[in-house]
């Protein structure tokens, strides 16, 4: 609680500048342990600002990572607003809403029964595209989505009444009115005071262009759970092309060709009309764009939209021919026998030399394809994903000369005999995708429970923060117990490093650690390995050695697999087993889906064991290229980045178990390398400060003794009174002079 005020003081300092000078913005990086009220502090402070200076801070854009997290934020907001209306005794006219994909918002009986997001999007598109609706006009038996029709007819005139709308509330509202909740939400975010959505909507240029383009400049943007934000940026800008993609694309091009032929015979005017439009420039191509969700082009620089499409690809046949040529060129590139790495300018030069494709038409490729698909009235855009991918690649590769690399691998490293050529066009500079966000919005706050070391984020994202701070927890009792287990009982050094990976002694000792822990820790234990392959090998040898059977005497074992559905089931059973008192162990993988999105509150995770240091697979060429780029551009040494990356994932994994001050859990780092200062120093402050010198290089037995002691202490009842004055404050305590001084003091220090 006291932490929350210190935290708020920090955020306040950051927001302060643009109240004084509306021109100057401020960005910030803040780390605060989860469960200490990060979300509610941010919300309440920014909402207070919005109420005080409605003209300076018009909108709050709160970005989180997963759907449940988004919904949680909205629930917190609801509580805050209830508190406001209770205190002020008047209903405020705030509009806050969550936005998610169609899959989570659709209420159309047929469409919403589909299970996968892509299917829902495709089906929705086939019912709401503008030409479909035009056809419906002439022929009413043509199916359309009545919810969208209703919304289009009346929904836009009346703004959404003020209130807090979670995803389910939106659906309810939509059902009552007969309006499509998805389009209603997308329309309403323009005038809402608070928008909560996934950070893809802001960072992925393909979606951002569509959804977030018109959001007001005077917004405050918060990226919560942002420890992986650089990877999200990079992912959204990278493209992989395989032979399969090219084959699909070939089919697409053929279809286009045939369709053009057909249309030419029946309705040549249509193509002429398109040609005329393209001459006039792309501006008009935006008409009716809202519903025609061709996943639109990656970051088009504004100047392109002002220019007209070059003459070489303006007619439909020419463009298809152009695509063919480009495709053939890519095919020839994929026929290589050895690995090739080159930059974008090199690629462009090569393509000009070989097939005489200029840079300029390539840049317009994406936009031109969308226009053509629209003209040809292609219903199922999902079918054309390959062609879209290729055209996006063309646009990207011709737009950015820096920050990207092209790697062509003729086969996978593990299977050199099987030809499986892949062209990786990978982004190495996360700042490219996030740059528009920093430029457009006056204040961007990046926050998470685990952001250490803080200084690396401004460097790789290329921005200048006003504040950077890492907060700790004020605890009435030490509810976390980090232990670094460096040795087995037989003094064998424990480590997942490459040389000792296959060592039976290490594997056995790891098994021993898990077995001992399974005997003393109540309810759930989560164990993380560094990779799937490593986990599979260890599980197999534990099975052979009979270690797993012994563990089964104490707890049930569930294991994460690469199949998300299977893992979900295992996860649910794991929770069931924790719930009914049997106790269970979940073996999981750092960087896997579980480590990123699932919380193990209270008895679902009383201990987390991190087997090894989760370094990324360093032999990948893409990673090597990125490391090189980081070194050249940002002066970040390879090793620093790798360690940073490994430690943030480790912190992320162990942080899963502690989700608040009443929670408690063991954090066991089972690798001797964690004891080194360069690793330890990169853990979040709130974990670091509980690592004592005595717990740096423990044997398994010692760790068991310490854990027993810790667990026994934690099992004692813990009441509100114990926390009062320390980690909980009453109103009087908060208003006391002493406390205010303390907050001011701490806020200035950091």
């Amino acid at each position, binding site marked *: 609680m006291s932490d929350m005020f210190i935290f708020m003081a920090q955020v306040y300092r950051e927001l302060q500048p643009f109240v004084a000078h509306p021109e100057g913005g401020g960005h910030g990086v803040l780390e605060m342990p989860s469960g200490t009220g990060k979300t509610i502090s941010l919300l309440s402070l920014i909402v207070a600002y919005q109420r005080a200076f409605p003209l300076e801070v018009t909108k709050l854009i709160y970005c989180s990572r997963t759907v449940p997290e988004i919904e949680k934020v909205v*629930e917190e907001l609801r509580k805050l607003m209830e508190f406001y209306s209770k205190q002020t005794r008047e209903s405020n006219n705030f509009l806050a809403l969550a936005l998610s994909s169609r899959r989570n918002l659709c209420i159309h009986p047929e469409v919403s029964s589909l299970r996968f*997001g892509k299917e829902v999007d495709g089906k929705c598109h086939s019912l709401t595209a503008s030409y479909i609706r035009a056809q419906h006009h002439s022929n009413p038996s043509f199916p359309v989505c009545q919810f969208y029709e209703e919304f289009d007819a009346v929904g836009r005139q009346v703004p959404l009444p003020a209130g807090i709308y979670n995803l389910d509330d939106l659906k309810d509202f939509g059902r009552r009115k007969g309006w499509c909740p998805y389009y209603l939400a997308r329309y309403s975010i323009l005038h809402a005071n608070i928008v909560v959505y996934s950070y893809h909507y802001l960072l992925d240029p393909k979606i951002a262009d569509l959804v977030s383009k018109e959001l007001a400049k005077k917004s405050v943007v918060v990226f919560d759970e942002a420890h992986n934000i650089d990877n999200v940026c990079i992912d959204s800008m990278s493209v992989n092309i395989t032979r399969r993609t090219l084959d699909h694309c070939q089919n697409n091009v053929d279809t286009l060709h045939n369709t053009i032929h057909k249309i030419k015979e029946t309705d040549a005017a249509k193509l002429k009309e398109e040609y005329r439009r393209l001459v006039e420039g792309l501006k008009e191509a935006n008409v009716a764009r809202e519903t025609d969700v061709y996943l639109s082009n990656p970051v088009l620089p504004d100047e392109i939209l002002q220019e007209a499409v070059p003459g070489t690809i303006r007619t439909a046949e020419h463009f298809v021919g152009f695509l063919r040529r480009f495709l053939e060129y890519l095919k020839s590139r994929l026929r290589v026998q050895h690995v090739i790495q080159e930059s974008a300018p090199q690629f462009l030069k090569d393509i000009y030399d070989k097939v005489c494709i200029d840079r300029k038409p390539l840049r317009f490729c994406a936009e031109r394809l969308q226009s053509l698909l629209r003209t040809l009235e292609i219903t199922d855009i999902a079918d054309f994903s390959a062609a879209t991918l290729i055209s996006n690649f063309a646009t990207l590769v011709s737009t950015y000369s820096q920050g990207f690399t092209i790697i062509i691998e003729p086969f996978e490293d593990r299977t050199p005999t099987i030809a499986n050529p892949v062209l990786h066009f990978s982004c190495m500079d996360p700042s490219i995708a996030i740059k528009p966000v920093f430029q457009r919005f006056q204040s961007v706050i990046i926050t998470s429970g685990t952001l250490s070391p803080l200084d690396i984020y401004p460097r790789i994202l290329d921005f200048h923060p006003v504040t950077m701070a890492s907060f700790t927890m004020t605890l009435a009792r030490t509810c976390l117990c980090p232990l670094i287990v460096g040795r087995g009982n037989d003094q064998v050094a424990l480590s997942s490093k490459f040389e000792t990976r296959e060592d039976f002694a290490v594997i056995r000792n790891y098994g021993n650690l898990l077995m001992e822990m399974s005997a003393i820790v109540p309810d759930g234990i989560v164990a993380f390995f560094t990779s799937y392959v490593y986990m599979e090998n260890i599980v*197999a040898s534990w099975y052979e050695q009979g270690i797993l059977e012994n563990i089964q005497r104490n707890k049930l074992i569930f294991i994460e697999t690469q199949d998300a559905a299977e893992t979900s089931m295992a996860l649910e059973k794991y929770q*069931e087993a924790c719930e009914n008192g049997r106790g269970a162990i979940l073996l999981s993988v750092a960087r896997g889906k*579980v480590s990123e999105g699932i919380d193990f509150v209270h008895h679902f995770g009383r201990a987390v064991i991190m087997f090894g240091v989760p370094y990324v697979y360093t032999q990948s060429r893409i990673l090597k290229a990125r490391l090189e780029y980081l070194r050249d551009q940002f002066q970040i040494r390879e090793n620093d980045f790798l360690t940073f990356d490994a430690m943030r994932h480790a912190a992320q994994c162990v942080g899963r178990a502690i989700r608040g001050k009443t929670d408690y859990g063991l954090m066991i780092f089972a690798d001797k390398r964690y004891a080194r200062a360069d690793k330890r120093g990169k853990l979040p402050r709130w974990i670091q400060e509980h690592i004592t010198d005595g717990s740096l290089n423990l044997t398994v037995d010692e760790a068991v003794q310490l854990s027993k002691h810790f667990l026994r202490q934690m099992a004692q009842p813990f009441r509100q009174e114990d926390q009062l004055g320390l980690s909980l404050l009453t109103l009087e305590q908060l208003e006391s002079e002493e406390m205010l001084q303390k907050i001011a003091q701490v806020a200035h220090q950091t």
Partner: protein
Amino acid sequence: MASLSEEVLLVVKKVRQRKQDGTLYLMAERIAWGPEGKDRFTVSHLYADIRCQKISPDGKAKVQLQLVLHSGESTTFHFANESTALKDREAAKELLQQLLPKFKKKANKELEEKNRMLQEDPVLFQLYKDLVVSQVISAEEFWANRLGGVTNTDPAQYKYKQEVGISGAFLADIRPQTDGCNGLRYNLTADIIESIFRTYPAVKQKYNENVPHNLTEKEFWTRFFQSHYFHRDRINTGTQDIFSECAKQDEKGLKSMVVQGVKNPLVDLLSLEDKTLDEGYGVCGAQPSTSNSNRTVKESSNYAIIKRFNHHSAMVLAAGSRKGETPTDQASETSSTDGNSRDSDFFQPPVKKVKLQEEYEDLQQENRPKTVPLNLKKSDRYAHGPVPLQSQQYTTSQDIINSVNYIQHEMANYKPNLTQVLSSTVATSAISALSPGGVLMQAGAQQAINQMVPSEVQGELKHLYVAAGELLRHFWSCFPVNTPFLEEKVIKMKSNLERFQLTKLRPFQEKIQRQYLSTNLTGHLEEMLQTAYNKFHIWQTRRMMRKT
């Protein structure tokens, strides 16, 4: 012979016992053996008394079967019919195997029940200690009219038997042991078999299909252990294996579980991400394909192990909770078959709603004042409550003033009349009579018995009362004595009472005498006993008279 009326399940001739030829009978409730040519059984054991049976190893010359009793004794039968000895023994063994568990359960159940009663009722336990452990009456007598009554009257209480779950490691308990000559021996117990059946219903089905028509039990389990099904890291190769179908069924079950999806949206990894990258985008892109084509053998065996562990744990978990949760399971199934349950909020599991609103219990305002749990010593007093106010005669202040004035007036005029006072001796005796211990204070002393007697003596007295009451209950329940059995019992009870008086009551009386406490404490007990004796004497004399 009474036993002949029993149902005889199996007769095996030429069975030797103590070097004597004879015939072995397996009957509904007991096993018996009679020597050749004689018409009675020299050996007879109730099944309930048998702890276990042992058989001689296959290779041995003598084909024997040994019964070990709960009392520790054992009886050995030697099957002597040369041609069919083995078959005879097997038949007897099989039958016993089926019969013994039934009776064992019954015996255990009874024991358990007694144990439970003793644990739940401390008074009964004390009584048991006083009467049975000190051998005033036998255990059977003690339980004779208790057990029946309890089990008959409230079976409901007995019904809620907790289902025992399955150990997660039951397969680990069948550690194979090498038997020295290139073979493995697996130890299977009835518990493990039950665990296997409960966890893997497919195996049970196979068992029912094949045993005993196609395979013997032993063959079945041998095949089970040989199958890849048991060895999870082996990959399915042949189809002649009867368990390959089980594996397929499991696979199907697993798949259907996966397809069904999870009910808790917070753990559904598929819908966690709001927007996944389209195919072709992203850095890692070319994921190692999950199809089995380019997996190495080792990798797919590892994968199989992982899958099997997940499945095994899920099955164990399900087996543990299957009984209790059937109704809820069904409910959820119907809701999921209801069509598009995914989008309709009505079916949204309440978990989601609860979990989204994270509650910090330490931040919750405690509105209610702390309550103290009500601890009632005498609940009836609580139930009856305070007596309602009765209309009373109030004295007004004027009355009081008047009376004070009156008393003052009286006092002012008081003159001691010294000629009429008591003599000093009489006064002293009166004072002594009124002081504690005096004649007139006796009643007060009686009342204060709980202060005067130390608590352990009180406790002991209580136990004595309970024990005596129990014995007397037994005694009086014999009247009117109209059967020979009751006659016998009443005589026994009388001697029990006497023994009680001698071994329990007397020492207690001596003890309180030593502590200089009033011997009255046991007066009532003795009175009760005396009444019983009187009754007994009257009855006895009457009987004598009738006899003569």
